[in-house]
C-alpha cells in the first residue's frame, strides 16, 4: 500500500538527517583576548562540544594554516586551556577553528595575531618567515620594491579570459563597423 511504502523511507531519511545534525551540536569557542602576539599564548575555552571526542585546533589565515594542538573536551562538552601560537605565525587576521575527527569544522573564533613583542620572542622577529610557496621571500626592512609573486593560471582561467576578451573585441568591432544596421 502506498502509505506503508512511503512512510518507512521517509522516516529513515528523517532519522538520518537528525543523526547527522546531532553528530556535531552547535559548539562555541571563546577567548578573553581578541589578539595574541606571535609566539604567545591565547586563553581559550569551549562549550557544547561532543564530550570525550577529540578535536584539533587549527589557525587558518588567508594564506597560511597552522595546526596548533588537539584537545579532548570533558564529558559535559567543555574545556579550558591556553593555546600556544607559534612564533612563526605571520601577523594578520585568522580564524581559530575546531575540527572534528570527520573533518567538519564545529566551531570558529576570529583572532588577530600581532607582531611578537621585542625581547620576549625576539627570534620570531629575526627569523625568516617561510613564504617560499608564494615566492615572496623574507621582509627585513621598509622598501618600495614590489613582492616577487609567483603567478599561475589554470587552463580554465586562461580559457575564460580568452573567451571574455575575444567576445568583447569581436562584438565591439562589429558594433563599431555596423552601427547603422541597428
Amino acid at each position, binding site marked *: 500500500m502506498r502509505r506503508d511504502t512511503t512512510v518507512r523511507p521517509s522516516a529513515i531519511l528523517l532519522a538520518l538527517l537528525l543523526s547527522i545534525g546531532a553528530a556535531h551540536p552547535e559548539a562555541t569557542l571563546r577567548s578573553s583576548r581578541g589578539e595574541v602576539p606571535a609566539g604567545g599564548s591565547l586563553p581559550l575555552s569551549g562549550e557544547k562540544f561532543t564530550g570525550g571526542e577529540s578535536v584539533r585546533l587549527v589557525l587558518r589565515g588567508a594564506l597560511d594554516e597552522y595546526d596548533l594542538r588537539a584537545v579532548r573536551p570533558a564529558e559535559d562538552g567543555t574545556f579550558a586551556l591556553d593555546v600556544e601560537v607559534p612564533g612563526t605565525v605571520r601577523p594578520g587576521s585568522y580564524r581559530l577553528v575546531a575540527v572534528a575527527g570527520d573533518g567538519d569544522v564545529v566551531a570558529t573564533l576570529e583572532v588577530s595575531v600581532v607582531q611578537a613583542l621585542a625581547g620576549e620572542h625576539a627570534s620570531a622577529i629575526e627569523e625568516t618567515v617561510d613564504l617560499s610557496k608564494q615566492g615572496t621571500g623574507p621582509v627585513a626592512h*621598509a622598501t*618600495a620594491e614590489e613582492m616577487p609573486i609567483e603567478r599561475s593560471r589554470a587552463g580554465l582561467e586562461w580559457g*575564460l579570459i580568452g573567451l571574455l576578451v575575444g567576445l568583447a573585441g569581436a562584438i565591439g568591432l562589429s558594433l563599431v563597423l555596423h552601427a547603422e544596421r541597428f
Partner: protein
Amino acid sequence: MVLSVPEDARQGPAEERDRDPENTHHGGGIGRRLGLGGLDYEIPREAQRWTYMLGGLTAFLLVLLILTGIYLAQFYNPSPVGAHDSVLYIITRAPLGDWVRSLHYWSAGGVVVTISAHIAWVFWRRSYKAPREVTWWAGVGMAGLVFLLVVTGTALRYDQEGFEALAHFVAGGELTGALGVFFTEGFTLSTPLLPRIYALHTSALPFLLLALMGLHFWLIKQLGIHADGRPRARFRHHAVRLTGFGLLAWGALGVLAVALPEGLGYDPVPGVEMTKPFWPVLWVYGLENLLGAWGMVLGPSLVFLFLATVPLLDRGEGHEPGGHGWVGWAGAAVAITIAALWLYGALGAAQQHIGM
C-alpha cells in the same frame, strides 16, 4: 574607417516617425517595453565622431570598475591586520583574482585618461556655456569623485604605498581641521581609518558618482549634444557605436591585465615615506615636493575650483571653440602646470612630505 562619419548616415526622418508611430522599429517587443524608442532621436552628424564619445567611453570604463570591484570585494579584508594578506590571496588564490585585480587597476588608469580628454574637449568646445552649466558642474563633480576614488583605492592595497596613502589622508585631515576630521584616526574609536576608507571607496563615492552620472546623461538628453551641423544622425547609432568602442576598450584592458599584471608591495612599515603614488596623482606628489603637505590639499582644490568656475568666468559671446579669451589661456596654463608637476613628480627622487 571606423573613426569617420559614415557616408550612409541617414537623416533624421519625420517620415520614419509617420511610418512607425509607436517606434517599433527596434525590437517592437523588447524595444518598446524598455522604452528604447527614447534613444531614437536626432543628433548632429558631427556627434558621431569619436571625440564626442569620450564621456560615454568613460562611463563604460566606470562600469567595468564597478563590476571588477564587486568581485574583488568578495575576497578583500578591510581590516588593517588582514588587508595585505587578502590582496595577496586575491592575486595568488582567488579564481581569476590576479586578472580581475589587474583589470581594475588598468581600468582606473583608463578612466583618468578618458575623463581628462573629455574635460579638455568639452572645455575647448565651450560646451559649458548656457544652457549647459549644470551639465558641466555635474561633470566636474564626477571628475572630483573619480580623483577621490583613485586615492582611496590606492590606500586599500595596504602595502608600503597604500599605507603611505593612508598616512597622507591623516595628514591632510589634520591640516584642514574641521573639514578633514573624517580622515583622522581620532574621528571614531570604534574602527580604524582603513575600513572607513573602504566604505567610502565601495559605497559612498560610487553612489554619488552614479547619481551625478544620471543627472549628466539626463541633461545631455534634454539639452542635446553640443555639436555642429544639422541633425543628420540618430542617437541610437551613436549609442551602438559607443558601445562598440566601450567593448573594444574592455578587450584591450583585458589584454593589458594579462600582459602587465599589477603587483603588490611588502607589508607596510610605519614611519617612513619612500614610495610614489599611483601615476594619475604624481602631479600632486610633485606639488608636495615643492610646497610640502599643503600641496596635496591646495593643488586638487584649486584645479577643481577653477573647473567649477569656468562657466562663470567665460563671459564671452557665442560658443565658438577657442573663443574663451583669458579663460582659455588660464585653462591651458593649468594643464601645462599639471603636466610639468607630473613630470617633476615622476622623474624626481622620492621625498618625505609628512611626519609619519
